[in-house]
């Protein structure tokens, strides 16, 4: 902790507020602006997709036209103009992912700059053994540009590739699972994603395999006026284990860009999926201009007995976050977890939480949500815990804590608790407070500056969740927490 704290303090001093805000100048291939059936056919043709997928996209699009905009969130935004965006943007040089040597050096540079080295050799040659390495799928605007360590993963039987490749190479798997957890008509943003999704990651862990390394996807929005619509599908077969991490950044721009992703997780009997997110999309400038609208549908199903899905998220970016990673606990004894830190500063708005649907017997879920609000930001926890009549001895524990920094921000808690089984235990706790004067005084008295002290206290506040992140990212996340709060004191 002390090491990380020292690092945190250093970071606060040395770094710019949003270091991922640069733009890569690269030749892009774009679909015409706007959204209609032709655009969807264009995307589908670009990806050389089978007929069934195109049909599915069109079905989703036609349904989307009929769906009203969701207004229930505690979000204040201008209505979206869906016609004023590009739905497909790909670096010209990249015709689908290929071997790393052929990837445009400009792209590799971009990822390097973001701290995501895509060159396997360097990692292999490094001090670390391969066991600690992380396989990365890099998604640049609409396409996946590279996926590392594919060969090594293949040896273990793990499929890790972009979803476009999966559609081509493993059509049965994709057809079976795509839309099985988040149907295309689920909500307006998921529906749009089903119609126009361009890329994302596909992971399949076969029976009994413990995935040998961390898998991760790095999403980058680069082109102007584009929307990013990626789709991630992770399937853990019987007894399999996988830990997956996603990270996201975008350049600084005055326009709002839309990011509407769908993530589906399927855990079979005895399988475990750990899904971590470090979300750092561009949050807009100090006046609240620009930034990414992050409207994401994430849902996992614990299909078999004794399965487990764990969501961990650190949300520091985006002008608006609208995201509810959920678990459907269908198998008996299955476990769902949700750990979240959401930090909003400036004019950011976050409306995030989870849904835990208990269907099977002895299912357990745990929700730990830490919301931190500073500046003019609004931070809302919105969650649902639902115990179905058949969920005997189900257990849920929910804790949502909010921390307010400054008197112009807001923190809200909106939990829905629906219990239909008498043997179930549901507990919910929520608190809202500010950084206490005692804590501040203690730090200041020992010569710690005000901002550093806040960073220190906030890191302590969020530690319970940060500890759940994979080792490499926990340190990263701690730094991010400090940076996000910069300028909120004094």
């Amino acid at each position: 902790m002390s090491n990380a704290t020292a690092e945190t303090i250093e970071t606060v001093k040395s770094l710019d507020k949003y270091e991922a805000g640069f733009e890569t100048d690269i030749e892009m291939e774009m679909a015409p602006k706007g959204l209609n059936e032709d655009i969807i056919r264009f995307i589908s043709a670009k990806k050389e997709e089978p007929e069934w997928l195109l049909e599915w996209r069109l079905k989703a699009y036609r349904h989307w036209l009929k769906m009203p905009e969701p207004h229930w969130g505690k979000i204040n935004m201008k209505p979206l103009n869906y016609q004023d965006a590009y739905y497909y943007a790909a670096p010209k040089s990249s015709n689908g992912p290929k071997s790393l040597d052929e990837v445009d050096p400009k792209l590799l540079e971009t990822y390097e700059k973001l701290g995501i080295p895509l060159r396997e050799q360097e990692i292999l040659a490094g001090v670390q053994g391969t066991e600690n390495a992380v396989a990365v799928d890099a998604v640049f605007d609409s396409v996946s540009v590279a996926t590392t360590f594919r060969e090594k993963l293949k040896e273990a039987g793990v499929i890790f590739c972009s979803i476009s490749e999966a559609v081509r190479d493993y059509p049965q798997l994709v057809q079976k699972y795509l839309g099985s957890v988040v149907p295309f008509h689920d909500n307006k943003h998921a529906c749009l994603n089903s119609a126009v999704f361009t890329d994302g990651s596909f992971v399949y862990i076969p029976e009994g395999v413990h995935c040998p390394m961390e898998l991760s996807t790095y999403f980058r929005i680069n082109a102007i006026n584009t929307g990013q619509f990626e789709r991630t599908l992770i399937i853990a077969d019987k007894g399999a284990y996988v830990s997956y991490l996603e990270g996201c950044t975008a350049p600084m721009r005055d326009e709002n860009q839309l990011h509407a992703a769908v993530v589906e997780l399927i855990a079979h009997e005895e399988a475990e999926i750990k899904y971590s997110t470090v979300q750092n999309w561009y949050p807009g400038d100090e006046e609240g201009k620009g930034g990414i609208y992050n409207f994401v549908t994430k849902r996992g199903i614990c299909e078999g007995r004794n399965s487990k899905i764990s969501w961990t998220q650190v949300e520091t970016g985006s002008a608006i976050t609208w995201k509810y990673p959920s678990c459907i606990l269908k198998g008996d004894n299955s476990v769902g977890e949700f750990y979240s830190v959401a930090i909003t500063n400036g004019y950011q708005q976050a409306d995030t939480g989870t849904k835990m649907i208990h269907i099977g017997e002895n299912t357990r879920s745990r929700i730990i949500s830490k919301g931190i609000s500073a500046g003019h930001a609004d931070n809302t926890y919105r969650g649902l815990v639902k115990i179905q009549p058949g969920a005997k001895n189900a257990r849920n524990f929910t804790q949502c804590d909010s921390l307010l920094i400054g008197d112009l921000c807001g923190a809200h808690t909106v939990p829905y608790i629906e219990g239909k089984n008498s043997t179930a235990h549901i507990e919910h706790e929520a608190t809202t407070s500010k950084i206490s004067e005692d804590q501040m005084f203690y730090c200041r008295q020992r010569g710690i500056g005000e901002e550093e002290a806040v960073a220190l206290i906030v890191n302590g506040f969020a530690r319970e969740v940060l500890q759940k992140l994979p080792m490499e990212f926990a340190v990263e996340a701690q730094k991010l927490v400090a940076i996000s709060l910069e300028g909120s004191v004094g």
Partner: protein
Amino acid sequence: MAQADRKDNVEPFVFPVKSPYKPENADIVLNGYADFLTQDPASSWVETLRQQGKARVEEFGIPSPKLERWKYTNLFPIEKERFKVQLPAILNPSIPDKLDGIESRLTIVNGIFQPQLSDMPEGLYCGSLKSFIESNDDWLRPYLESQDERVRQFDDQMLMDLNAAYMSDGIVIHVPKNVHIENTIEILSVLAGPVSSHPAILIVVEDGASLTLCERVIGDFGWQNRVNRVHVGSNARLNIFRTQTLSDKAYFTENTVVVQGRDSYLQMLTMTTGAALSRNQYHAFLKGENGECHIDGTYTITDKQHHDTTILIEHMEPHCYSNQTHKGLLAKNARGVFQGKIHVHQKAQKTDGYQLNNTILLSDTAEMDTKPELEIYADDVKCSHGATTGQLDDGPLFYMRSRGIPESVARKIMMQSFLGEVVDKIVDENMKSYCEQILDTWLDNVDKS
């Protein structure tokens, strides 16, 4: 997304908007409205209030589950009954004796004040709303009008509009400045006959005054849709203890609007065991510094009963304290709903808000839906809430059984102590023993069947 900057940009889509309102229901609740007007013409400003209310009901109908705060409660059973308002001649239903230790009681039957069944207390102004309207309208008018405006910011207050449309009678209690009323006053509200009634209760406790009220709602049939307006002045004190023990064929919906001044104290405790469908909705506005507001309740329901408590506490000034403790037992197919919200305005620093909802499900077919909400815009506050749903703990049950206490007795002891936390808050001893008695009977019956 960015504004249109290209000429070839087509118009954005117009998405269909699904209305959460059901104006077609207005006819059901306004059935026989013309008769009501001819039977009971009113003075001009009451007429205006009625027209405003009626217009809104016609526009929006009555609340449907599509509205966020009506998500868990459907008024369809009430619609199905097609109750009409009837303005009877003086009714004389059989009514229970006064509670022990109570000298004065105000009685309304089907929303109409009954002077022959009432004993007027001394030292304060009170009586039927109708007589107050007729004699003293200038004083009354702002209370009936302005409080409604504040609540109208919500789009789901059609029951309150309906009450206004049928504004006719009710009870007014007005405690003048610095007057302390020592004796507890009882309000008895009787539902007699399958009709709907829409009484308005206005309680004004002026600065520095104090009052304790007990209320019982009893009856076999009908639907009461009432509005309570409670005004607690600076440094004033008001305790209200209520029981609602209607039969399971009756319906009860109410809206309570509370406005509190500086250093004021309000305690409002409601025990619900009756009604096929009941909803108690509270809006409390803490408009002065250091106000203290307690809204507590128990709900013990069984069979197909449905109970809903919806609370919104608005902390508008610094240093206020609010507390809600709601506990319930749900047996058989009962369904309970608790929606509590604490809203702390930016100005309301040093707020202390607490909210607790515990429910025990006694059967697998019972259902509890809880939504404890916090909406906070001030940073120096202490707000927390807790909610649990579960069953009776096996541990203590085993402890008692192993010491020779029969299971039924052990269960009863546990349930009593569970509700005890709320019942113990009743400071009026007579009312407390009355409440304990009601719970006792309920607990005896629930385990038998």
